[in-house]
């Protein structure tokens, strides 16, 4: 039997036989096939069909013309792109978007890794469970609530922290954290870490849990201390997960990366006083696009941002592949 199969490769089998095998296999896999096709259909409907809307970025589109208007409106070339670049706020928007995103990546990316390693090293299971729960719970709080908490804490008039510091005599003037352009990036990064770091720790804890204990035992036999074991066993074993998460977060860096929500943070914590550092491309697109009903202009802005994101994800993937051998694809 084995011999026959080797001598008659599949491409030499006749068509009816092939069809039989195909139908048979398809029928056998029908349940799985339905799920796969459903997934593909979902992608087609919600991810690919809307891409026709990108045409709007090059057209004189008016919202009253409906979906058909995407195809029937007149072409305007790169008018909206030029308008964006010539906007008086454009350099600020680009700077804020990039700086906020990079700061978040640099400061928030290592936190879940460090937290996961620290949690594994903790012996008391109560402390471990308590810290883990306390750190991932904020993930479930919406940004609207977080901004409300932020206001209750940092307001110069009614904020708990300012009131406490003033009554203790530690400060003479309330700290204007919510309205000072210089404090916005710090506020955004720290609240993002507080909210999301615990959640991402779970992935790294899972990666650590998968490490073969014999590696630790061997390292211990060789005289490796706790720090050496982390450096030479834990971290190398986490490398794969770290790189995948890093690529994903670089791909979505302009949206805020791992800790996400640049947009929500700016909408809620941003105000006219800190707009110098808080306005980003996404909020600009939202305000210009939806508040004024300029969908075509907003599409052009988002297209620019998506283009930058694609470049970032492809290049970070290539770099990861080159230097570590691990990559998304």
């Amino acid at each position: 039997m084995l011999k026959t199969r080797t001598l008659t490769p599949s491409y030499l089998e006749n068509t009816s036989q092939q069809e039989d095998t195909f139908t048979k296999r398809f029928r056998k896999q029908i349940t799985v096939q339905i799920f796969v096709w459903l997934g593909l259909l979902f992608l087609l409907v919600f991810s690919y069909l809307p891409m026709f809307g990108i045409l709007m970025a090059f057209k004189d589109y008016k919202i009253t013309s409906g979906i058909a208007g995407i195809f029937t409106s007149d072409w305007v070339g790169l008018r909206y792109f030029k308008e964006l670049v010539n906007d008086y706020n454009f350099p600020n928007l680009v700077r804020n978007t990039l700086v906020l995103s990079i700061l978040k990546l640099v400061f928030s990316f290592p936190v879940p890794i460090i937290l996961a390693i620290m949690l594994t090293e903790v012996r008391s299971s109560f402390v471990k469970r308590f810290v883990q729960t306390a750190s991932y719970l904020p993930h479930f709080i919406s940004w609207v609530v977080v901004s409300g908490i932020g206001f209750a804490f940092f307001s110069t008039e009614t904020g708990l922290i300012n009131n406490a510091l003033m009554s203790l005599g530690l400060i003479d003037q309330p700290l204007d954290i919510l309205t000072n352009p210089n404090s916005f990036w710090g506020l955004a990064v720290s609240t993002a870490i507080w909210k999301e770091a615990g959640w991402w720790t779970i992935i790294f804890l899972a990666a650590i849990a998968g490490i073969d204990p014999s590696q630790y035992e061997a390292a211990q036999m060789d005289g490796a201390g706790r720090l050496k074991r982390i450096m030479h066993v834990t971290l190398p074993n986490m490398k794969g997960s770290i790189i995948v998460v890093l690529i994903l977060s670089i791909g979505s860096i302009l949206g805020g990366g791992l800790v996400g929500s640049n947009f929500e943070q700016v909408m809620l914590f941003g105000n006219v006083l800190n707009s110098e550092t808080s306005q980003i491309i996404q909020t600009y697109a939202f305000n210009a696009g939806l508040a004024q009903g300029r969908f075509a202009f907003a599409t052009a802005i988002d297209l620019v941002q998506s283009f930058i994101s694609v470049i970032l994800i492809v290049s970070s993937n290539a770099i990861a592949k080159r230097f570590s051998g691990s990559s998304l694809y």
Partner: protein
Amino acid sequence: MGNNKTARKPAMILLAVTILAGLITGCSGNNSENSSTSTSASGTSETENNTSSTGKIVELKLFVDQPWWPLKDWSGSIPEEITKQTGVKLNITVATDEKQLPLMIASGDLPDLVVTGTNAQLKRLADPSLSYSWQELIDKYAPDFKIDPQYIAVNTADDGSYYTIRNNFSTSAEWKANEKYALNTGAGISVRSDIMEELGNPKVETLSDLNNLFAKVKDKHPEMVPLVLNPNPAWAKGYFATQFGAEKEGFGDKEGQLVHTLRTPELEKMYLYMNELYRSGYVKAENFAYKNEDQAKQIMTSGKGFAYAWTIEGADRLTSETKASGYKWVQLPVKISDTFKVENYGSGWQGVFISKNNKNPEASIKLMQFLMSEEGQRLALWGIEGQDYKMSDDGGYPVFTYDRSSDEVKNEKGIYWWGLLAGSAVNEALGNYVPGTETTKASQQLSELITFKPEVGLVQPAADSQEEVIKNNIATMMQTEEAKIYLATSEEEAKKAFANMAQQADKMGLENLETWANTKYAEVKGNFNQ
């Protein structure tokens, strides 16, 4: 094991098919709904017709494009009475933010009726593919619905049809006929009366008196904020703009020509004065970070604020809201400067549109006919005669049996706000006339000083036009940049920030906008005088 597998398979297939069906229906739901509503839109008059013939209540959906709208449903004695009179019951959806309506327009998912007061949306909805022309519906279903030609003139869209009649407008004849009691409203400042008394009720007749007052409050009550500004930029600077004779935004008439406020020295002076208020510590920087009215109002009702820049109704409304704490509020005089000037450019505010998705255009136009009638306006704005109000002895104004300044009572009765769907400026004003109240005293002062120029308000660029883009861009830029003037640390810096703002507006195409506005103004004035 084998049995288990066979039993599981059909269940899995069923689950998959259900998800698939859900996905498909989910995607097509919108279209099918639209097609069914559009079919019924053309055929309803015969089938559903009006209530009077069938006795059935017609339920229509109304979208309110104002996130701050206090009434969230069609309940209370007044809406019930309107339903009784018209056979129409409205199911209300209040916007969560100002972006919701543009999205609904884009998706073609408009409800039966839409009420909006935003210029851009008013212009956008005045489109035959989105809304019914009122004239068309009146000719077909309500030939006895007569509208004053001046109301039609100020609401006619560029295509010659009118798609709504906005509220808060009255003809000069109506104003004249009610000049004793129909008083104007505008921006004002309310102050705590107990603190005024404590300070010996100092006279506030000039801007420097006002400065002195704030200085005394700051000195005697360092824990208080001397002045809180309403987060709405128009109310925040409204009182000061009138003192300097400046327009808050957009164009003003200067000797027959439209001039953008950014080009006027009056606006600069107003900003410099407001910057001085900040530098003197009378206004807090955080005030400019408030995003909704409640944040500012809370400072006042909690007793942390002394003066509140809002409307001339502010004192009565705050007194009513702070009943529990016992604070009382009074209005500062309307005019405290020689350069005071206030011109009313209003040609109406918000309007109801009957969308092309409307299930029953006949009932809709008849509802608007009722709400616009004198009887309908009085019911919706004031209440049931004999029960909620009776006319004064000379028949000039309504005397209310309920606390008119209490938002709580108004919300419970469902009164006043639904009256704004079609209320005239005069009827609104008559409802505000309560002898002896702070609002009425301030309104009387303001009414003597105000001049009307509705034609200026009619100069509005078409939706999605280049002029509209420039106008919106400049308005958005001003909101961000003016904060820099308010919070400048020296007068020099404030002047520089103002010059920078004016320069930015120039770069954004202010000159083109001005040329367009003056051409349009000449055209509007021509039509208006006819």
